[in-house]
C-alpha cells in the first residue's frame, strides 16, 4: 500500500501532496526532489528508487512528475498501474493533465486522491462512476446530468458492475467498434525480419440503453478450429455495418493482399495473448473463449491483443545507405506498399537518420511524397500524405558531411516509419459479430472500423 502521492512540476515544486499513512512526513517530498528530479544524472536509470526504507515510484507525463511513496514491500507493478490510472483520470477530467491543469483544479485533484486511495489501498478508479460524485462546478456545468441520489451512486461505486449506471436510456441504440492495430517491426539491415508483431486494441463506444448483455466474436483461430460451423458469420450483412459507407468487410476485404483474411475464406487469426476490460467475464473466456460482458457507457477499451504469426507488413522498405569516405553518405530508399490497391495509407512519415555532422542534403523523390532535411532531428523527413496500396516510391539522397576534428563514426540509427492505413489489419483480425441482448429487446445498430498504424516500425541501415 502507498504512504503518499506527490505531483511535482518540472522544476520539482510540489503541486499536490497527499499523505495516506503516518509512516512518512511531507518532507519525503523533498527527498525525492533532491535525489531524483534535481539529480545531476541526466538519464533516470530506474523508475523505482529506494532510499533507506522508503521506495519512490515515479512516472513522467507532460511537465509533471507523478510520484508514489511506499514504506513496505509494495507491489511495484500495482503502483505503476495505479499511477497510470491516476494519469488517465486527470486526462479524462481536465482534458489535459499538466501543471496548469493541476494548479487550476487542485481542489478536485485532492478530492480524487481522497476517493481513489483509502489508507493507501486503491479503491474504485472507474472514471464514469467517479464523475458522478467527484465533481466541480466546471465539470458539472458542462455535462448537465441530474445528480443521481447518493444512494444509487454508492451502490454503483461498490456494485458488481461499478463501470455502469443502470438507468441509461438512448433513443437510438448504437455501438461502434474500432479495431486499432499497431504493427511493430525490427528489420535487419540485410532485410530479415528480426521481430514483427501486432498489438491490437479494440475500442468500443457504446450508446446502449439499460443493462445490455453483449457477446463479441472474432475470427480467433482457436474458436474457429474448435467449431468450424460457426465460421460462417451469423449476421454478416444485416446488423454489421461499416461506417463511412463502405461495404461489409467480408466483401470488400476478401483478398489477402488487402490484409483482411476475409472470414468467408475461412481465414483465422492466431491470437498469442489478449487482455480484457474488467467488464468481460474472464472465467467464461477461459472455458470456451466467449467474450461476454455488460459494457460501460461511452468509450472504453474492450480488449487488447497481440499476434505474432503471419503479420502482414503494410510496407516493405529497401534501404541502401553507403558512407563514401568521410565526406558524404549516399541513400537509396525504396518503399513498397503491400496492401490492396483499394486502400491507402495516410499521414505517412519516413524518418531517415543522417549523421550529426551533415551539412547539406540533395534529395530526390520519385513517386509520392516530399522530403526535406531536418537538422534538429538529424534526419531526412519524408512525408507522404496519401500512399495507395500496391504502389512504390523511392528516394535518393546525397548528404555532405562537415569534416570533424576528431572523427567519430556514425552509429547509424534505424529508419522509422509512421503511418495509418484504414480498413486494414496487419494481423488479419476481423470482427465476426457483436450481439446485444437486453431485457427490453430493442434493436441496436453496430458499426465496425479497422485501422492499422505504425507502432515502432524500425528498419536498420
Amino acid at each position, binding site marked *: 500500500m502507498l504512504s503518499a502521492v506527490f505531483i511535482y512540476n518540472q522544476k520539482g515544486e510540489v503541486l499536490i501532496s497527499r499523505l495516506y499513512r503516518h509512516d512518512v512526513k511531507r518532507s519525503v517530498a523533498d527527498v525525492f526532489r533532491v535525489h531524483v528530479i534535481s539529480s545531476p544524472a541526466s538519464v533516470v536509470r530506474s523508475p523505482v528508487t529506494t532510499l533507506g526504507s522508503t521506495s519512490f515510484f515515479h512516472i513522467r507525463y507532460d511537465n509533471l512528475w507523478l510520484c508514489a511513496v511506499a514504506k513496505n514491500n509494495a507491489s511495484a507493478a500495482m503502483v505503476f498501474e495505479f499511477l497510470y490510472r491516476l494519469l488517465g483520470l486527470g486526462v479524462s477530467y481536465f482534458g489535459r493533465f499538466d501543471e496548469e491543469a493541476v494548479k487550476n483544479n487542485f481542489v478536485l485533484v485532492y478530492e480524487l486522491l481522497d476517493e481513489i486511495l*483509502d489508507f493507501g489501498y486503491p479503491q474504485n478508479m472507474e472514471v464514469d462512476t467517479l464523475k458522478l460524485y467527484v465533481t466541480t462546478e466546471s465539470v458539472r456545468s458542462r455535462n448537465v446530468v441530474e445528480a443521481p441520489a447518493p444512494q444509487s451512486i454508492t451502490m454503483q461505486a461498490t456494485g458488481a458492475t461499478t463501470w455502469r449506471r443502470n438507468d441509461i436510456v438512448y433513443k437510438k441504440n448504437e455501438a461502434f467498434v474500432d479495431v486499432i492495430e499497431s504493427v511493430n517491426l525490427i528489420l535487419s539491415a540485410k532485410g530479415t525480419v528480426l521481430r514483427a508483431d501486432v498489438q491490437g486494441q479494440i475500442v468500443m463506444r457504446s450508446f446502449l440503453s439499460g443493462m445490455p448483455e453483449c457477446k463479441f466474436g472474432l475470427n480467433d483461430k482457436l474458436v474457429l478450429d474448435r467449431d468450424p460451423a460457426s465460421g460462417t458469420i451469423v449476421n454478416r450483412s444485416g446488423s454489421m455495418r461499416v461506417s463511412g459507407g463502405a461495404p461489409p468487410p467480408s466483401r470488400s476485404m476478401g483478398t489477402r493482399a488487402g490484409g483482411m483474411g476475409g472470414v468467408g475464406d475461412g481465414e483465422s487469426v492466431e491470437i*498469442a495473448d489478449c487482455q480484457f476490460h474488467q467488464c468481460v467475464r474472464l472465467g467464461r473466456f477461459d472455458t470456451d473463449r466467449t467474450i461476454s460482458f455488460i459494457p460501460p457507457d461511452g468509450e472504453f477499451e474492450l480488449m487488447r491483443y497481440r499476434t505474432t504469426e503471419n503479420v502482414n507488413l503494410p510496407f516493405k522498405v529497401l534501404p541502401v545507405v553507403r558512407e563514401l569516405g568521410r565526406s558524404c553518405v549516399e541513400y537509396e530508399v525504396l518503399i513498397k506498399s503491400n496492401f490492396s490497391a483499394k486502400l491507402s495509407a495516410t499521414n505517412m512519415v519516413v524518418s531517415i537518420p543522417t549523421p550529426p555532422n551533415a551539412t547539406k542534403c540533395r534529395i530526390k523523390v520519385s513517386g509520392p511524397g516530399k522530403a526535406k532535411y531536418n537538422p534538429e532531428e538529424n534526419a531526412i523527413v519524408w512525408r507522404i500524405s496519401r500512399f495507395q496500396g500496391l504502389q512504390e516510391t523511392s528516394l535518393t539522397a546525397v548528404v555532405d558531411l562537415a569534416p570533424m576534428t576528431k572523427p567519430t563514426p556514425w*552509429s547509424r540509427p534505424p529508419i522509422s516509419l509512421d503511418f495509418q492505413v484504414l480498413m486494414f489489419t496487419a494481423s488479419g483480425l476481423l470482427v465476426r459479430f457483436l450481439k446485444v441482448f437486453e431485457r427490453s429487446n430493442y434493436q441496436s445498430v453496430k458499426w465496425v472500423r479497422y485501422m492499422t498504424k505504425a507502432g515502432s516500425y524500425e528498419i536498420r541501415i
Partner: protein
Amino acid sequence: MMNAAIQTNIARLQIMKAKVLAALRKGENYELKTELNSEYKERRKEAVRRVIANMTVGKDVSGLFTDVLKNMHTDDLEIKKLIYLYLINYAKTQPDLVILAINTFVKDAEDSNPLIRALAIRTMGCLHVQEVLDYLCDPLRKCLKDSNPYVRKTAVMCVAKVYDLNAEVAEENGFIEGVRESLSDSNTMVVSNAVSALVEMNDMAPNQDIWKLDPGMVGKLLTAINECIEWGQIAILETLVEYVPRDEKEAENICERVLPRLQHANGSVVLTTVRLLLKYEKYVRRADLLSQFSKKMVPPLITLLSSEPEIQYVALRNINIILQRHPALLSKEIRVFFCRYNDPIYVKYEKLDVLVRICSERNVEPLLNELKEYAKEVDVDFVSRAVQAISRLAIRYESAAEKAIKVLQELLQTKINHIIQNVMVAFQEVLRRYPNRFDSVVEGLCEYIDEVDEPDARAALFWIVGEYSEHVANVSNILTSSLESFLEEKDECVQLALVSASVKFFLKSPQKGQSLVLKALQTATEKCANPDVRDRAYIYWRLLSADPNAARSVVLIDKPPIELDDADLSPQLLEELVNELGCVSSVLQKPAKLFVYKLAEKAGVPRDSDAAGMGLDEADSAVAGGSGGSASGIDATNDGEPELLISF
C-alpha cells in the same frame, strides 16, 4: 579580511531576508485569518482553498487551526472535504483542538447521505489522534453494519487505521471480529477491503494471529474474485499466495480458478497471478497441470512488454527471476526481447540481461548479430554491456566462439574509441577461455595499441601480447615503446600486466627478450611508486635469477579455465523473491528485510549502523544546502532511524 567582511555582510543580509520573509508569511496568515472569519461565504471558501494551497507548497498554516475549524459545519461538500484534508495534516500537531471538530464528525457519520457518512468515518480514521478514538468507536460500530456497501467498505478500512493507532481499542470493541464477518459480505468491494485490512492488521500484530485463512473462506474469496474490482483481485490473490492448501486437490483447484486472471488488462493482476502459480508449484504434483500452467503464463508475461515502460521494467526484472526458476520458459521467445532503438535505457539493460539468460546454443548466432548492433549504439554504458554479453555467450557456448570472435573483430573495425576498449577486454576473456584456438587474430589486435587507452583494456591487450608473443611479429617493439611510458600509466593494473607480459616474452624467447625484461623490471622496481608493482617485479626478478626453469613452470603454466559468474540469486533468495513477484524486493532483487525495517526487526537483523550517515541524512544536508537555507532543514522520514542507501 575583505572576504570575512563580505561574509558577515552576506550573513546579515540573509538574516534580514529571513525576517522579512517570516513577516510576509505572518502577514499572509493574518490575512487568511480575517478571510476565514469573513461574513461572506464565498470569501471564506476561497480562503479555505488558499490555506490548502499554502499547505501543499509546504508553508506552515497550522496557526489557523481554530479559524479553519469554524468553517467545518457546512453543507458545502467541497469546503468540508478541504477542511478534512487540513485536519488530516495538522490533527497530530494540535490533538487537543481536534476535539472541537468531533461534533461535526459524529453528526456527519449519521448523515442520511452515505457519501458523507463514509467521508466522516474515513477522515476520522486518518486523523491518527488517540483523543479521537473514544468518539470514533460508536460511529464506526454502526458503520460496519451500515445498510450501504460504500459505507461498509470504508468502515472496514477504518478498523485497520484504528488498530494501527491502538490495537487494544480495536480488539475490545469487537472491530476485528466485525471485519472478519465482513468477509462474507454480499458486496465484493467490502470483501476485498476486509481482506486488505485483515492482512494489514496481521502484519502489525506481534503474533500475526488476527486472521488465518481457512478452506471455507478460500472458496468464498475465489468466487468473489470474479466480481471484484482489479485492486481487490490483487488483494485476494496476494492472500492466496500466502495460503497453504490442505492437499493437492485444493491447490489444483485454486490454480485453475485463478488462471483466467492472466487475461486481465491490469499488469499487476497478471503478475500476482503468476506469483501464485509459481508459489503453488510445490503443492501441485501433476506434471500435465504444471506444464499447462507455465504454458499459459508465457503469453501474458510477454504482453507486459508492450505496456508502459515502467511496467515493462518491473516485468523484465521479474522475468529475470522467473527464468532462474524455469530457465527454458521463454527460450522460444527470444526475439521479443530485442531492444527497440527508442526503448528507455533502463528497459534496454534488462532486456539485454534476459537475452543473455535465455539464449541457447540454437539461437546464439542471431543474438550475436543483434548484440553487434547494440554495441554500435550511442549510450556508452549500454555498449559496454552489449560487448560483455558477446564474450559471455562465447564463453558459454564453444560453438559460438568463432562467430563471437568475428563479431568482435567487426566491432574493432568501427574504430570507435569506447567500443575498442570494451572489445579488447572481451577478446582477453574469449582467448583465455579457448587457448591456442584463435592465435591468428592476435596479430590484428596489436594494431590498436595506440587507440587502447582505458586501463582495463590496456591491461587486457598486454595480457594478450604476453600470452601470444610468439604469434606477434613485432612484440619487442610494442613492449619497448610501451615501457617508455610505463610510469605514465594511469592504473597499476596496466603496469602489472606490462611487467608480466615482458616476463612471458622473455621466457618464450630469451634472446630477444633479455634487454627488454631487464628494462621492465628495472623501471618497475626502481622508479615505480606503487608498492604492489614493485613487489611483483621483485618476485619476478628473484624467480628469474634463481631458476629460469622454475620461472617457466610458474609463469607459463596453463591457466585455470575462466568461469562465468552468472550472477544467479542464491536458492534461498530466489525462493523469497518468487513469492514476492512484482514487489519492490523483486525489482531490487534484494531481500525485503533490507529495506523494510519492520521486517528486519522481526527477523532480528541488526541494522547496518555504519550506513547511518548515508541515505536520508545525506538527503537532508543536500536539501538544506541546495535551497539556500530557505527551508529550515527537513526532518527525515523517521526520527533518528538510521537509513541505509541501496543503490542499484
